[in-house]
């Protein structure tokens, strides 16, 4: 659980921010070939959570043969122990998840953005608001339910990670990347402690329900806020 929480802190804020920025860019009038960019950014979805993706990253992040270290070498950075150090292993796992799910989250936000009437931003522009101000004061508040939805999905996804930690790091080093689901699986099928892992499933389920309810509460509070403003 703690690992998942740490992992969550590592990549979810970054992923949410990136997804939001990319969605805004793709929704803006500056960008041409929007379909092409969208396709490229969304491509990893078809490999999300797969065995193939985990192994590909394992090879790319290999201390000696991997291209990640090679690229860093070009930049004059010394090799990074991607998978052999507790913190780097968490970061590597976060990187894999970010790669797989960023495009998906971007699409969710893009859907939300396209539901916002363009007149609002237009009116603000006429009133003299700059792009940054429009983004912070109009886009983000109106998009809040969608952002909360995306973050909630990410939280549930993080606590449910299984394929990636099992194959990329096997929960290690020193259990640094063990997630609740990996633990449940290990206890059931390796240690044959079915009762123990059933109890763990309940705790895990309770955490997810609390998180989902929190999301529901956050979104509905916002709706009241909108209604109050007419």
């Amino acid at each position, binding site marked *: 659980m703690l690992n998942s929480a740490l992992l969550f802190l590592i990549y979810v804020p970054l992923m949410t921010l990136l997804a939001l920025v990319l969605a805004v860019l793709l929704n803006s009038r500056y960008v041409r070939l929007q379909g092409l960019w969208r396709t490229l950014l969304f491509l990893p979805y078809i490999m999300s959570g797969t065995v193939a993706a985990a192994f590909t990253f394992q090879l790319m992040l290999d201390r000696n043969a991997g291209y990640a270290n090679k690229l860093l070498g070009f930049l004059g950075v010394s090799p990074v122990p991607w998978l052999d150090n507790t913190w780097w292993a968490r970061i590597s796992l976060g990187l894999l998840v970010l790669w797989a799910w960023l495009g998906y989250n971007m699409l969710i936000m893009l859907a939300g953005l396209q539901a916002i009437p363009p007149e609002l931003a237009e009116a603000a522009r006429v009133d003299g608001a700059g792009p940054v101000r429009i983004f912070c004061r109009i886009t983000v508040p109106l998009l809040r339910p969608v952002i909360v939805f995306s973050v909630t999905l990410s939280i549930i996804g993080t606590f449910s990670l299984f*394929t990636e930690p099992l194959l990329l790091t096997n929960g290690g080093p020193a259990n640094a990347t063990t997630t609740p689901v990996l633990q449940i699986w290990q206890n059931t099928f390796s240690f044959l402690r079915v009762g123990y892992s059933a109890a763990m499933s309940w705790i895990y389920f309770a955490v997810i329900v609390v998180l989902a309810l929190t999301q529901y509460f956050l979104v509905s509070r916002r709706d009241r806020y909108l209604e109050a403003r007419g």
Partner: protein
Amino acid sequence: MSIAFRLRGEHLVRALVYLVLAGMSAFMVFPFVWMLVSSLKPFQEIFSGAHFLPQHWTLHNFSSFFEQTNAARALWNSFYIAVATTALSLFLCALGGYGFAKFRFPGRNVLFAFVIATLVIPFAAIVVPLFVMMRNTFHWVDTPWPLIVPSAANAFGIFFMRQYMLSIPDEILDAARVDGATERRIFFRIVLPVCAPALISLGIIVFIASWNGFLWPLVVLPSPHHWTLPLVLRSLQGPPGRTPYDVLMAGSVISVLPLVLGFLVFQRRLVSGIMAGTVKG
């Protein structure tokens, strides 16, 4: 001067935007390229890592993959399980969605709320009891049934189809009823064809999920004869330093290739399906 400045600013912003997009896209595409390139290299070249492109192009890894493992069998297993799952799931979710969208019956809203509530339950939370049920009650371990049946009528699919069917005007259905069409005929001849776009979107999502599934097949398919592709790939992993990455990457390419091709053909439907599933979600 101010106009010139603004123009230059605009150009700068535009260049920056494209730089960000190109950088992120490269990050997204690179692992695919890396996988493909590695699968065409001899083992020593992967680990010497001197060149990005193979010095000695080879298809040997692909033939090894089929020789060393039961890959042909696994390919077929993955394929027919994904097709069966998709077909059954589309049929049941369309039926369920139709019921919730177009019929009034006592307890409808309570039942629908119940279906939606099950969306919160992550699969991993029920994997242990479901496995026990599959083994002790149904005796389905080592058969394809656990992969096809339990998830066939899933809450997401029912919700997804219902949302789409809400937009079918009641008048069409009533007109058909007045003309004497049976309910079965209405469902197959009017509702399903009208929902074709939603069915395609949902079908792709279900197919990808089934094709890539790992945790559940790992649990219910212990014997190699029934393995799907992800399980075969996983079985190639050796102790540290002993994993045959050359064969592994070839297998990965084979497992991803159908999805990449399908993605290129259907990506519009997939994208709009995911976007439709979230607004109002």
